[in-house]
């Protein structure tokens, strides 16, 4: 039984471990890229990630691309006067010396036109385009509907 539990724990932690990969480009560190299960392919998926700018000049995330979705776009959830809306974000600032989270309830990538429904444990690449740093590709792991983020030792959420 112990072995079974251990094996289960390992299998379950494998995809999460992938979300804990860190990719760097110039002064930017990109990590904790994750998504959530979708119910069918007809509804948009979501993309969350954490970007750290250790440099001295501001940058900005200006777009995302992925083979998993035909129309991936950046959005922001805004709750103002008790109303939630989700405007398109033309760019997400990544100021010098700061980190930015695309996380539930704030900035997020919306993956429209999914080629297939996203299932727990799946992973797919997302290429982030930065105004200055250029492009970088991260592996995105699909977590459960109830997940609040990947379980990484150093996760900032």
């Amino acid at each position, binding site marked *: 039984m112990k072995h079974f539990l251990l094996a289960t724990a390992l299998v379950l932690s494998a995809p999460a471990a992938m979300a804990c990969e860190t990719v760097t480009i110039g002064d930017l560190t990109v990590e904790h890229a994750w998504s*959530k*299960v979708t*119910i*069918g392919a*007809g*509804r*948009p*998926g*979501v993309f969350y990630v954490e970007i750290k700018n250790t440099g001295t000049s501001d940058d900005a995330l200006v777009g995302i691309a992925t083979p998993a979705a035909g129309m991936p*776009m950046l*959005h922001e*959830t805004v*709750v103002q006067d*008790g*109303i*939630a*809306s*989700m*405007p*398109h974000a033309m760019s997400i600032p990544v100021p010098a010396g700061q980190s930015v989270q695309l996380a*539930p*309830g704030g900035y*997020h990538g*919306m*993956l*429209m*036109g999914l080629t297939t429904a996203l299932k727990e444990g799946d992973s797919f690449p997302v290429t982030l385009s930065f105004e200055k740093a250029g492009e970088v590709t991260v592996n995105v792991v699909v977590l459960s*509907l*109830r997940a609040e983020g990947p379980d990484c030792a150093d996760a900032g959420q």
Partner: protein
Amino acid sequence: MRLRPLQIILWIAATAAVATFSAVRWWPATDDTATAAAAFAPAFTLADSEGRIRSTAEFRGKFLLVFFGFTSCPDVCPTTLSEVAQVMDDLGSDAESVQPIFISIDPERDKRLGLADYTKAFHPAILGLAGSEEETKSAAASFKIFYEREADTSSPDGYTMAHSPGLYLISPDGEWLRQFTYGTSAAEILSDLQSRL
């Protein structure tokens, strides 16, 4: 007999006054909350995913956790429904006293995409309802919530829905109890419910 037209007018005025008074005085009492006059009882009559008409009255005796949303919503709605799912699991045997309800504010598209598949993916106890446009408007008005379709070329089908993202708690008598604002944790919702059960 010269007073007759005046008498008629007076009789009409008196009758109108009595009718108005009765309406004002007794109308709230005929609402299904016979309790406190100030209480407000949200109501809905909406179809479930199988086309059966479900209305507030059938849930008397249970607490209702009501959320308005739409299934193409990638961020806000899944977050709240996940919390509701967690609450339902954590309630254990008390879960039968609580009925979570998801009311679609984008009923046409949600009926097409499949409402039950969506709600069940979060928790089998969540009941998804999607009515006509009129029925949805009237349900939202009775909960005093706002929603609006917004044209947005960066969203699926060229539009998105702005909406009140709160979770609403209704008493077993059908009265409004409170709202949990967007982002309230499952633990907080759970402890509030447990204090009432």
